[in-house]
């Protein structure tokens, strides 16, 4: 396998772990100093900050699903386009659950090191999601 194929497989497994609600499996795809830069936070989160956010997010959207539509890799970089969907069943970050569902496209860029994710940066439109969920 090429470096790119190995890195794409790491990203695929990480996404599958999230779809399986396996937070520890997902985080094990990261380096110890790995970070995630979500649009919901002004600064990147380290893994200790990221873990509770993921757990709360999966609790809020018990049917959350990430469907990868496209993947581009070069060297230690991978970029993916996903369709993310879920139903807002439980309160999250001060927002009351509305029971409504959303579906949104996102672009995610990964930097990898030795077959692990060192950084991820997520680009998505919160406004589009909040409009669908009735929290705008």
């Amino acid at each position, binding site marked *: 396998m090429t470096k790119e194929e190995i890195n794409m497989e790491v990203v695929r497994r990480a996404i599958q772990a999230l779809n399986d609600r396996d937070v520890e499996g997902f985080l094990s795809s990261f380096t110890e100093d790995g970070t995630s830069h979500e649009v919901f936070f002004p600064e990147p989160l380290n893994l200790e900050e990221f873990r509770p956010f993921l757990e709360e997010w999966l609790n809020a959207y018990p049917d959350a699903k990430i469907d990868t539509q*496209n993947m581009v890799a070069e060297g230690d*970089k*991978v970029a993916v*386009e996903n369709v993310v969907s879920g139903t807002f069943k439980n309160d999250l970050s001060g927002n009351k659950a509305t029971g409504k569902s959303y579906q949104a496209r996102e672009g995610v*860029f990964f930097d990898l090191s030795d077959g692990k994710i060192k950084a991820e*940066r997520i*680009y*998505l*439109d*919160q406004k589009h999601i909040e409009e669908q969920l009735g929290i705008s």
Partner: protein
Amino acid sequence: MGAKEEMNKETVRKAIEAFNVRDLEAYWDCHTEDTTYHEVYFTEPQTKEQMSKFMLDLWDSYPDWIIENKNMIACGDKVAIENEMSATFENDQAHLKATGKKFIIWEGVFFDMKDGKIQHMRMYMDRKSQESQLGLS
């Protein structure tokens, strides 16, 4: 990285540069005739004609809109980039009153290329953050 990837990256770089110097003709020279753009501002992909109008309106409302590329990767006929965009809302846009405020935001953009030209573009960014910085929300 192969010659195809390098050529595709160069096309994307030229398109960004053409955008930054407001050269619409040079911009569309980087695209196929049937190119489509899927921006977060629209529910459906836009045609070249629709995007031309949108960009001219954008440049009028945000005269200093600039795109600075921060990351670019390519594989075959696919290119993915991360940019930092910034602009000041100086003139009214449609029903929106200019606020004189500036935004700085990152975006992720994916391109499907054909024969060294951009055929499809899909852009991802957070309008909530942009509108907050501009004083629109």
